[in-house]
């Protein structure tokens, strides 16, 4: 059936500026640009342009301009252009609309309605340029109380047995992005940056490439329902083992890496044949209850000899507080919650845009519930799904998080333009692709440096804010909601967040 969906973008090439170097035709991963011998110019197929803007960035003469296509439909606030386009596409194909990255709908962003306190006359602020500021934190179960023994020499010794914890020098980790969804070079950049900055990256559910076993102290290995690349050696090759139940962009939905992305290396890492769909449905078929979850948590602890914290990752959904209480009681050392703005390599649009809740509310509700039940110390809370800047990190920690995870922000640091076409595998920036000529565009050394710079910049900013708050450690900020005020939020939302309105 011929498509009647009009192109979203229009590619304009200034012929006077264009040197006919043809670089843009190579740079476009989506095949939207081609050189015409006949007319001696670059011809653009607007229908293939996704506004990844690689050509614009790489054109040596700055001769390319991408614009939104001129009026394609009569304006309507109800049946918007996007809604009409989606109906046309579905009328043509009968398929589920697939999309990538996080939800881009204009739901309120609560981070932007939170303001942070500062010390002035009554309490002095601290100058972070001169005073030490502690950003170090530990993930894992903390004991209910500490007991000590005094030995015959009068030495005091800790009697309480401590559960395994993992050290973070910055309270920011890289969220799960599997090899297959992102390229080898992306994972390598993340691992190198995690190692350089004393933090963690998460393999996602695609296994761990053999080359990366050397980064083991900085890796969270995931065990998802499809169990791709999961074996005893893999489980022991990480600092943390994570059971992936849900993901913010697609709660209740599993992973589905299409066969065309399963090349030889991805197949080797996932341990499946080349070209087969990698299906990883939402339910783990050995988990149908909290008791079953507990069983898998302890199976993983047995397999790693109780030496590593076990994390359980869920999407932020209604009743998340009770869900997380169950997860902690099932024995998880870390609970990872991903809000509805969390990214994805591919998800049905209807799920991404309509299912789940914001991480701000989920985090506040979970932290509150675990405190009320007296079990907050039994697990660390890691949250993600829409963390865009250091201010979001600070606000998340003040709402009760031990650490945050960043996915999209990390990819943006690597060059991603959020064109939201990861699902096609044509990423012109060499991020969400397995095509060798595209993958080679991201130099892992450069990528790691950019990520390191980002973490370093955010760390300095967090230290500045801590100083302004008059506190000198990130641990003193955790759950410190008195330091937050809401602006433009209704009473119920303030109640769930556990904060006062600005002015009080």
């Amino acid at each position: 059936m011929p498509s009647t969906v009009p192109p979203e973008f229009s590619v304009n090439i200034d012929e006077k500026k264009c040197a006919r170097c043809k670089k843009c035709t190579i740079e476009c991963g989506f095949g939207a640009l081609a050189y015409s011998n006949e007319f001696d110019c670059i011809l653009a197929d607007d229908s293939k342009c996704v506004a990844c803007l690689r050509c614009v960035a790489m054109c040596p003469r700055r001769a390319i301009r991408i614009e939104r296509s001129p009026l394609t439909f009569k304006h309507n606030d109800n049946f918007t252009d996007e809604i009409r386009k989606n109906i046309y596409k579905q009328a043509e194909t009968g398929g589920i609309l697939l999309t990538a990255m996080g939800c881009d709908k204009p739901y309120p962003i609560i981070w932007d309605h939170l303001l942070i306190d500062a010390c002035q006359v009554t309490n002095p602020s601290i100058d972070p340029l001169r005073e030490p500021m502690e950003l170090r934190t530990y993930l894992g179960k903390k004991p209910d109380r500490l007991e000590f023994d005094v030995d015959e020499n009068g030495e005091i010794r800790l009697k309480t047995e401590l559960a395994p914890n993992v050290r973070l020098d910055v309270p920011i980790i890289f969220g799960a992005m599997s090899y297959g969804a992102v390229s080898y070079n992306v994972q390598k950049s993340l691992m190198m940056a995690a190692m350089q900055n004393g933090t963690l990256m998460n393999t996602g559910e695609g296994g761990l490439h053999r080359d990366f076993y050397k980064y083991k102290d900085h890796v969270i290995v995931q065990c998802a329902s499809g169990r791709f690349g999961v074996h005893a050696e893999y489980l022991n090759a990480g600092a943390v083992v994570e059971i992936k139940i849900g993901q913010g962009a697609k709660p209740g939905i599993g992973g589905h890496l299409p066969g065309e992305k399963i090349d030889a290396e991805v197949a080797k890492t996932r341990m499946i044949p080349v070209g087969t769909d990698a299906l990883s449905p939402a339910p783990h078929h050995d988990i149908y209850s909290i008791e079953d979850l507990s069983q898998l948590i302890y199976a993983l602890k047995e397999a790693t000899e109780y030496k590593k914290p076990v994390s359980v990752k869920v999407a932020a959904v209604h009743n998340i507080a009770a869900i997380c209480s169950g997860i902690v009681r099932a024995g998880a050392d870390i609970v990872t919650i991903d809000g509805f703005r969390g990214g994805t390599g591919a998800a049905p649009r209807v799920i991404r845009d309509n299912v789940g809740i914001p991480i701000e509310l989920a985090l506040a509700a979970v932290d509150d519930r675990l405190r009320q039940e007296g079990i907050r110390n039994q697990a660390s809370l890691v949250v993600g799904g829409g963390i865009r800047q250091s201010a979001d990190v600070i606000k998340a920690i003040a709402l009760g998080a031990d650490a945050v995870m960043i996915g999209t922000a990390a990819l943006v640091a690597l060059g991603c333009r959020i064109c939201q076409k990861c699902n096609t595998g044509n990423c012109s920036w060499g991020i969400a692709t397995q095509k060798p000529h595209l993958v080679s565009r991201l130099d892992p050394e450069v990528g790691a440096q950019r990520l390191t710079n980002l973490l370093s910049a955010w760390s300095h900013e967090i230290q500045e804010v801590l100083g302004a708050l008059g506190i000198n450690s990130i641990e003193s900020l955790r759950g410190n909601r008195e330091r937050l005020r809401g602006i433009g939020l209704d009473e119920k939302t303030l109640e769930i967040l556990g904060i006062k309105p600005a002015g009080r």
Partner: protein
Amino acid sequence: MIRIDAKDMHYRALNERIRELVESGEAGVELDNVCGQKFIGDGLRARMRIVINGTPGNDLAIFMDGPEIVVHGNGQDGIGNTMNSGKVVVHGNAGDVIGYAMRGGKVFIKGDVGYRVGIHMKAYQDSVPAIVIGGAASDFLGEYMAGGVVVLLGLSGGKITGDYVGTGMHGGVIYVRGDVEDNYLGREVIKSEPDARDISIIGRLVGEYCAHFGKDFDEIMRKPFLKLSPRSHRPYGSLYTS
């Protein structure tokens, strides 16, 4: 062979003891009075023989990579869960989700099994896992199966499979001794007659089954087998648009 009396032993202590034996290079261990201890063989990477007298708990041989486990008794749920290599032989019946995402090695169950057996089974290069079931299987046999071999012998008589056999199957093969009516099959599955290569695969696995449980090979092989395989390696390839 070392013997351990597992009576009243917590699974954690029992498994720790087994890991110690592995580390000391012990080639075999026999566990007496096993009663519900979970995770025996969990993540063990070794050449070792574990004989279990009693009923082991759930997730026997989960993440296991190498050992051989023989159970003189029934098995419970999750035997061979995400197993990488090795062998499990159960002289009795077994529960649900046997061989979940199993990627190598073999599981032999003398009698019947429960639900979702062989779910997500995978294969990669030389690693081709196999499950041989002497009796009948319940619903969802080979669901989401992506590789490997399941042989279902139906020796206990009566109905041989439950409903939804091979739902979502996109790799691997299920051989059933006897017939399965179409209405018990998932949409992703096609029925066919085994060829010479199939018969040789079945023959080898049935031979091993008979050797473990002392059954008559010729009598089992006399009845014809049915082959169930996936229609496509990409069952949901055209479900999406973007």
